[in-house]
């Protein structure tokens, strides 16, 4: 492998990793703060992508469509939390897995009822549709650079909000000791609803960013969900920092694994990595103390 190809593949790995981080950020946020395993995260991801395509067609403005799609996905998440998931915070993880598994099936059929089974087109704005020359003869898709930038911004933003703001303090207080936080005058129920909505918005964002480079179709969230779970678990459930490191690690390992290993092994490499890491550190790379 030549040096420039190596650099390009490294960039591909990092970009794929950042995309994985976008996909798993909402999942690990909800998991870490509310102790809720939300398999329906993949469904919200799909919803974000479909809404974005619809709004692009309607408004012809990519940015506006992206914002609208995120807002509506957040709202759907908010309603979902209020109607169903709220009562599952205190239930076992197993019950959470089952109920959100049921939600995946329902969401898939709802999206199919609305948009049909034919994959829909995601039109990119002209400025991002092509590629630019990075160095030598390496052309890099402009949109992937945008994904890279958005992913890094989300990572920094989440870090800032959770660690350095008053809202973040309330969130952490609510997560570690609900009654105590309530006693301090924090409306924990509202905080949790908002965090869930924020998680949904992140899922929607990931969906619309990923949808622009892949196919937007019913069930697109299912394979992505597994990847997101792998990232979350390797990073340490609930750790934003862990998710970021794990996502980059998987992105790079997967990219080079696909290129260098025989295909059967290449598809296993992520799962082998996960088994090895969990055997070595049973609570992930950055365990969060409950």
């Amino acid at each position: 492998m030549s040096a420039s190809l190596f650099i390009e593949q490294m960039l591909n790995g990092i970009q794929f990793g950042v995309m994985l981080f976008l996909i798993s950020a909402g999942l690990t946020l909800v998991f870490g703060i509310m102790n809720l395993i939300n398999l329906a995260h993949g469904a919200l991801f799909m919803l974000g992508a479909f809404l974005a395509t619809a709004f692009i067609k309607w408004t012809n403005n990519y940015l506006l469509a992206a914002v609208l799609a995120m807002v509506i996905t957040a709202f759907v998440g908010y309603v979902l939390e209020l109607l169903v998931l709220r009562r599952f915070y205190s239930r076992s993880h197993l019950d959470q897995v089952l109920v959100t598994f049921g939600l995946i099936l329902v969401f898939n059929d709802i999206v199919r009822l609305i948009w049909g089974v034919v994959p829909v087109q995601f039109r990119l704005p002209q400025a991002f549709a092509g590629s630019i020359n990075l160095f030598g003869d390496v052309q890099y898709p402009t949109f992937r650079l945008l994904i890279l930038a958005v992913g890094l911004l989300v990572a920094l933003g989440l870090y800032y909000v959770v660690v350095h703001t008053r809202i973040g303090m309330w969130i952490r207080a609510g997560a570690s000791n609900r009654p105590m936080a309530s006693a301090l005058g924090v409306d924990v129920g509202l905080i949790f609803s908002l965090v869930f909505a924020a998680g949904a918005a992140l899922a929607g964002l990931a969906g619309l960013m990923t949808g622009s480079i892949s196919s937007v179709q019913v069930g697109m969230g299912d394979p992505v969900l597994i990847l997101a779970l792998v990232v979350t678990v390797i990073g340490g459930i609930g750790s934003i920092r862990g998710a970021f490191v794990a996502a980059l690690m998987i992105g790079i390992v997967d990219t080079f694994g696909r290129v260098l290993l025989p295909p059967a092994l290449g598809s296993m490499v992520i799962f082998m990595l996960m088994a090895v890491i969990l055997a070595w550190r049973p609570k992930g790379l950055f365990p969060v103390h409950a």
Partner: protein
Amino acid sequence: MPETQPNAGNATGTLLRGAWPAIVCIALLALVPTLSAMFDNPFLIRLFTRVLIFAIVAVALNFVLGFGGLVSMMHAGLFGVGAYVVAILAVHDFDGAPLWIFPGTSNLAITIPLAIVVTALVALLSGAVSLRTSGAYFIMITLAFNQMLYYFFVALQKYGGEDGQQILASLSFAGFDITKRVTFYYVSLAVLVAVMLLFWRLVNSRFGIILRATAQNERRVVALGVSPLRYKLAAFVISGAITGLAGGLWAAGQQFVSPADLSWIRAADFVVMAVLGGMTRVWGAVLGAVVIVLLEALLPNYTQYWQMPFGLIVILIVVYLQGGLAGLFVRDRPTGAH
């Protein structure tokens, strides 16, 4: 079958007390071939054979899930290992080519025990690694092992890869042809009953008590002077071995195996069966298997959008029926981590 506990006036848990739903269920299942002949619908037997084999897996899974608190997402993988052992040996028998130095065989009296042993070994190795973790991490690491097994069989191009492997050799059990539809049905039913009895005994044995106690309060078990890891691992291996047995039966019944048998969706289906059936009873999982297999077979006849009602049913049962379906029949206590 009740999972008894010592009890003043009646320290001896009788066999039948509280077991009647299981007995009714088995009796009804035993009637299926008769009903099938009555309605002249041989498909009924096939459908319920599927119910029986999945029920064996669900009961075995529930031993670690309901009683051991271990949510395994790799039972589809273990099921597939058992199935492939039977299939691969049958293929070598048909082709006449030895597998390395071993001749192939279509004798289920050899291949099914072998399926059990190989699956138990896989369960032992993967369990030894997985049991280092707990909770959600355990769910995910077993899922990872399931995917590894899945891709392993996809990579086995010699045995059909993604296309799967047809069994063309005619299978027998030490000379007896048990693959005829009705015979095979009753064989499967007998295995299911035997497996239920086995787990009922296990659950109430000293070994089972430690396992159940560990699921409720592992820290206390350690303080009592017991290191739970060995017990969890043993339970995982036993559960895996029985799942391998079911896989072997599956291959014999279908005469076809493919990596799709190991898909993680199937693994989730098994968990759904165990939970919906009711985890605190050995026989609950049988109800779960009946309902899930029938729903999956019947709903698509009514609508293309059958996954929505299926999903809604799952959600409603989880929300409103915490003891699972078994809870409809006997008053029960919820289980789960505390």
